[in-house]
């Protein structure tokens, strides 16, 4: 029966056709300008009816403090509370606000013919922030409520445990848990912080696919961007932090390695592509396809001014933890040993860059990631050139520089009684035992 069914398809002839990987990524033309107030503008030429506008406020050491986090919340509240959302909807525009590794980010996605109209709504709100007290109180109340319940959210516990275990207390991202209740900050402090950022802080503006002439007037209030404040490197290992989540059926396993300060971005990209480049990434193939231990393995590079880390994140049934840890360690030890591993990683890293040319938001996001780190407009081009010029053996070199067992920080979440002996069995005895409350930074 099966043979007969297989015979159905014999009309497909030949072997796997050859394929040609990308030789280079043709970044679109970019023009640098200075807006009237001093803000830097990177105008990226991309034909089409959609525009992406990014405003990145980089923060120097004077403003890079606890208020940054609150200012982001307030910026979001400002956008939500003061912007004429109905008018933006009519224009088909979407505004998002977020935090970067070194500041704040605002993104506007809008049909090109609605750019000027959207800016006429957005710019006055940013230039003259006038956040009503009730809105400030609402932000504080909502945040406190969220923080009060953080220990009940598995996702938040995981996020905070990872930050606390891997980053030093002075790191901007690690400060988030320390601000859990915002108790020491008054509404006046918050408004002052927000004004300091928006009125006095400088920015880099990235425009993809729109008319740069439309920006000069509305965004004239933006000053020149400050160099982003360097932040400390990730904490060195080895550490194994076990966070107790009673009766959790799965173990969440996060593994973090600091990136050496002198490693070129292209080399880290190569390593991340080898480990986690889609379904053919080494870790997915070993742990999922060959062993059936996990649904997926995420590999992420995080960068900030002055440092970065490589982070691996997966989940497995508690009973499978020793096997999953062993498979993970074995894979990390052999990342460059597999036939064709470096070739695949190069192709994956290069094509990943090409995929960001797919749409204005993807393209704007790629430039914004560099601007947030204080890089210049040509940084991405240089990174791609470095990637194509990396000598043979670069994957092995990157692996040996980054994937050092003594540098690893493991954060494992799950039921302590179940997981502690399993971690011992895996040769990873916990060095720290945390409760969920400890992980999210609750005060005793």
């Amino acid at each position, binding site marked *: 029966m099966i043979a007969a069914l297989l015979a159905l398809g014999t009309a497909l002839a030949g072997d796997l056709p050859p394929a040609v990987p990308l030789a280079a*990524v043709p970044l679109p033309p970019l023009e640098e300008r200075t807006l009237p107030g001093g803000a830097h503008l990177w105008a990226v030429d991309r034909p089409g009816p959609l525009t992406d506008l990014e405003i990145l406020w980089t923060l120097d050491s004077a403003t890079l403090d606890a208020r940054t986090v609150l200012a982001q919340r307030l910026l979001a509240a400002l956008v939500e509370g003061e912007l004429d959302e109905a008018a933006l909807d009519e224009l088909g525009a979407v505004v998002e606000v977020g935090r970067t590794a070194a500041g704040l980010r605002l993104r506007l996605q809008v049909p090109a013919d609605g750019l000027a109209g959207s800016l006429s709504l957005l710019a006055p709100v940013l230039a003259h922030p006038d956040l009503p007290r009730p809105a400030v109180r609402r932000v504080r109340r909502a945040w406190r409520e969220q923080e009060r319940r953080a220990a009940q959210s598995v996702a938040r516990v995981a996020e905070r445990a990872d930050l606390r275990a891997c980053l030093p207390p002075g790191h901007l991202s690690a400060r988030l848990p320390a601000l859990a209740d915002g108790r020491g900050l008054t509404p006046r402090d918050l408004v002052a912080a927000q004004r300091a950022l928006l009125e006095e802080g400088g920015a880099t503006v990235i425009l993809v696919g729109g008319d740069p002439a439309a920006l000069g007037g509305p965004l004239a209030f933006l000053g020149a961007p400050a160099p982003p404040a360097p932040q400390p490197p990730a904490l060195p290992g080895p550490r194994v932090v076990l966070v107790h989540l009673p009766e959790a059926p799965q173990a969440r396993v996060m593994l973090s390695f600091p990136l050496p300060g002198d490693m070129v971005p292209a080399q880290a990209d190569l390593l991340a592509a080898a480990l986690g480049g889609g379904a053919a990434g080494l870790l997915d193939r070993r742990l999922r396809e060959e062993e*059936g231990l996990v649904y997926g393995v995420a590999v992420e590079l995080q960068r900030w001014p002055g440092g970065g880390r490589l982070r691996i994140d997966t989940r497995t049934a508690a009973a499978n933890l020793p096997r999953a840890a062993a498979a993970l360690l074995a894979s990390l030890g052999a990342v460059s040993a597999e036939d064709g591993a470096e070739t695949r990683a190069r192709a994956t890293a290069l094509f990943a860059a090409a995929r960001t040319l797919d749409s204005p938001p993807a393209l704007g996001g790629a430039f914004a990631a560099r601007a947030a780190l204080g890089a210049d407009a040509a940084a991405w081009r240089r990174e791609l050139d470095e990637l194509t010029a990396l000598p043979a053996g670069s994957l092995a070199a990157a692996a040996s520089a980054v994937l050092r067992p003594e540098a690893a920080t493991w954060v494992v979440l799950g039921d302590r009684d179940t997981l502690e002996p399993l971690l011992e069995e895996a040769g990873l005895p916990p060095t720290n035992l945390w409760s969920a409350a400890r992980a999210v930074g609750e005060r005793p």
Partner: protein
Amino acid sequence: MPTLALITTTAVAATAGELTLENGLRVILREDHRAPLVALTLAVDAGAADDPPGQAGTAHLLEHMLFEGSAAVPGQGFDLALAAVGGDSNAWTHYDLMSFSQVLPPGALERALFLEADRLGRPSLEPDAVARQRAVVQAEGAREHDTPHGRDAAVLAALLYPGHPYARTLLGLWGAERDPALTILDAGALRTFWEGLLTPERCALTIVGDFDTVQAVAWAHATVGAIPARPPAPRSAALAPALAGAQRRVLWADAGDRTLYLAWRGVPRGDPDEPALALLAWLLAGREETGLRHRLTSRGRARRVEAWSDAWRLGGGFVVSVSAWRGRLAPLRRAVDREIARLAEEGPTEAELQQARGAWRGTWLRADESVERVTPLLAQCALTHAEADCLDAELARYEAVSADDVRRVAQGLLEAPGRVLLSVVAPGARPLRGSTAVEME
């Protein structure tokens, strides 16, 4: 040989064409040379609702297995062959649709088509690989189970469509441990499903991006066009009997908040009321300032308000969900009902309709401007509608919705013979009064 029909030409040098190959497989092409990539989606008009009785999870497990080897590309060769040029792939399964996507550099399109044809026409379905993928699906289900509110959608579908194929779980898992369907699935069950439902005439292949149409058509003929046609198995067309009364149920789950779902049967895809229901959902909770969401969140009565309308082959669902940190759920239910009643009586204003239309246009454009995002949408268009590039027509349907249409569908919800009121609360918290427990184990 079938001829290529040119269907549109747009301002950004994209052209689109479609053809139906001799074996019945439809191919939709749209050139776009703005970025050096090609995206490809094979959509199959089959899904979990076609799982045989007692074999829930078949379609989804088969989706996993189509990455696990085929006659010319054994083992993990599919992903490795793509990765050699930096490409990537993914897939998903829903009640009525399976979707397989690839994204690759332009120089790999012929290879991608060969890979797609080989796994669609000659999948290996090795028993050892089936066993491994069952374990992977177990891990997928456990992840869903561990995620706050991760089971809610499956429970809602089961309550809205009792006894119907939509009541089956997509993964063949129900609860953390119980998996009677998944464990009995073997290579034979998968092959039977594949033989009857993954036939060329049930498939639409979309290719979008930086390629040459004439060359791509030739490759399509030589690859997916070479899969022999075979008769498709009949599919269930059973409509579910109407729901009677308000089904008050509670799912005991500590998701950190307390959530109430108000759910009604919706309409099947392509139904004339599909756009009006989607617009009603947007008017209820589409953005911060829209009626219900603003009323509940600005005063702190709710932390989140959402509304959506799903349209599937044999039916759909219209759902409003309200989450709060604390307090009773009954006032939230009354607030939702009042707002729907208001819209049924007054309808939206012309200004609200303009805002909704603008928001739809923006959403459409953001999808249309991304090769990776638009490719699966075009494939679904081809399966759902007569025309291959239906996005403009779909947008026109949404833009034509009138205030009366919204009033009428809101009135329809008020007059519906039954609905589901599902409370999701931690053990010990109070659900809506009179709710009976959903059994998950």
